[in-house]
């Protein structure tokens, strides 16, 4: 690091100051979007629950042998959400399930956006045959029905959380790649890129120092939106029995409920909590993503 030297430290300190200022400006504008703040609060609540789950419910909640209730017990004072088909505490399971759903959603979205960003930036930076080939592949992924492809991948690979993350990440990146590539092309046509190149900036320097900071806001908004669909996709895969059978997730709980005949027996209380949890988290991420988007793109902000 060059922090010791004066000439290098000054511009760096300046850059950080500017970044802080723009982050503060971003937050000031974000705060004006009431739905976005609501989404953020909901998310904070769920993240807290997920983090505190070992303290709140303990890891024994998923244990079948030592269940507190009888199978399919109705909600009561002791078990506010009732018991699942093994007699486990459903409230505890839903809280515990937040860990898997949030983690898978987050990792899948990060994987998806990371692939999309790398492909998008490189395809925008290196023109010629590389870009042509890569964009062909992107287009091909784009026409594939995402859910069908994810199901196929999850079927082909072994049952684990990693499989679910990969299946979602690998199938959802093309939208990001297209958006990032368009942004990269726009950034690279500006004169200061030419200046950087004239001063001897290499490919890596231009992509990482000039293009990437410019596409980051877009990437941020895109990540938030993709987490929402990744969480839905995770629940879907788990519901189809393609998730990791050894962990508790919201989709898995719904699959359990269906297999236990909760639908035909009218055990609505078994079905409602996991579904509401999925919907709340997905909605919260969507609201945040929309708020981020309209802060970054004021023209949209006016119209929405």
């Amino acid at each position, binding site marked *: 690091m060059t922090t010791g030297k004066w000439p290098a430290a000054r511009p760096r300190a300046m850059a950080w100051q500017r970044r802080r200022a723009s982050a503060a400006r971003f937050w000031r504008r974000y705060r004006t979007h009431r739905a976005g703040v609501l989404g953020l609060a909901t998310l904070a609540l769920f993240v807290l629950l997920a983090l505190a789950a070992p303290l709140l419910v303990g890891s024994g909640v998923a244990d079948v042998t030592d269940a507190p209730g009888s199978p399919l017990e109705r909600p009561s004072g002791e078990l506010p959400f009732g018991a699942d088909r093994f007699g486990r505490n459903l409230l505890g399971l839903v809280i515990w399930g937040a860990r898997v759903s949030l983690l898978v959603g987050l990792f899948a979205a990060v994987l998806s956006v990371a692939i999309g960003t790398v492909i998008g930036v490189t395809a925008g930076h290196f023109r010629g045959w590389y870009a042509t080939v890569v964009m062909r592949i992107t287009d091909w992924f784009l*026409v594939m*029905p995402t859910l069908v492809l994810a199901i196929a991948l999850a079927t082909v690979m072994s049952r684990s959380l990693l499989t679910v993350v990969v299946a979602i990440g690998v199938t959802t990146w093309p939208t990001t790649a297209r958006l990032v590539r368009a942004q990269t092309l726009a950034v690279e046509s500006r004169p200061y890129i030419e200046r950087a190149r004239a001063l001897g900036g290499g490919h890596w320097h231009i992509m990482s120092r000039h293009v990437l900071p410019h596409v980051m806001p877009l990437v941020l908004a895109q990540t938030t939106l993709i987490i929402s669909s990744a969480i839905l996709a995770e629940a879907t895969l788990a519901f189809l029995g393609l998730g990791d059978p050894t962990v508790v997730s919201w989709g898995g709980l719904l699959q359990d409920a269906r297999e236990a005949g909760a639908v035909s027996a009218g055990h609505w209380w078994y079905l*409602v909590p996991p579904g509401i949890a*999925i919907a709340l988290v997905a909605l919260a991420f969507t609201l945040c*993503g929309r708020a981020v988007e309209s802060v970054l793109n004021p023209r949209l902000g006016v*119209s929405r």
Partner: protein
Amino acid sequence: MTSDATSASVGGGTGATDGPPKDGPSATGGRVTTAYPRYVAGRVAGAAVSLLAVLVTSFFLFRLIPGDPVKFMTGGRQVSAEQLAAYREQFGLDLPLWQQFADYCGKALTGDLGTSYQFNAPVVDKITEALPNTLLLTGTAFVLYTALGIALGTRSAWRHGRLGDRFHTGLALVLYSLPSFWLGLLLIVTLSVGIGPLPGLFPTGGMESGGEEGFAYVVDVAHHLVLPVVTLVAVEYGQTLLVTRSALLDEMGGDYLTTARAKGLRDDLVRRRHAVPNALLPTVTLIFINLGRTVAGVILVETVFSWPGLGGLFYQALSVPDLPLVQGLFFVFAAAVIVMNTLADLIYPLFDPRVGR
């Protein structure tokens, strides 16, 4: 612009294409008479290449599935090595992979997608059997959610910021966040099984009760159709609503609307004759993309409601795994999206003379 509206309004995983071809022949400035046919040829050729790529993928992807399909076919019965070999030979599983692939491609081009292990029937027959049911379900849902989305989106935009707009936008976002299978299960519990005093109003699944004929049969199928369609409409209309709304909002500042009003036109005439036709342009692309997506996205709803369509068949085939059937269905789902995207590309320039001519 269009792709912005599509992907920005709802986000993640929705922007199935990059919008209409703005970088198409219009950029090169071809003459009106020759440009469109050439453009059509290009798009159709591109679609053909995509279809071929899907064919290749569907073959190799599902060869990776662990487990011996022959073991399933024998259903765990004790069979001799000769019988296993006979099965392998019957389904061509004893040949080297490249030869299987060559056979597969050759047959696919003549419309033969192999024989299902599970049903011991041609895959094409199983698919054509299930296709009308899926089309009935998705078609009904598609018409309803498109109409609902456009109607509500138009009203929301025209009175944006008011209570109705906020309510409809909020509701659309909430419904869009619901897992479709969960909504389906919930509808079954409340409206088919019935909670407490509520009687079961609708059948829990399937497409017919059996034994009905003529008009009674139609009523029976319609009765079975209600809940799956409601589920699909509820989770799908939000996107159309949001895109229509933001497209119309973009048009609302237009000078031509001021002119129309200055002419003394009534408010709803300004909306219906002037604003909406322009605003519908981005929606047209979305509508076609949705049509393709709905066919593939119906897997969950069909599974939950035991609807005898392609989605339910796909779920059944996956659990085996019934390779030829899975491959065939994968191809059909992908082909639906490709064909619809291509149609959207082809039709768009006809709607919007600024594009693609």
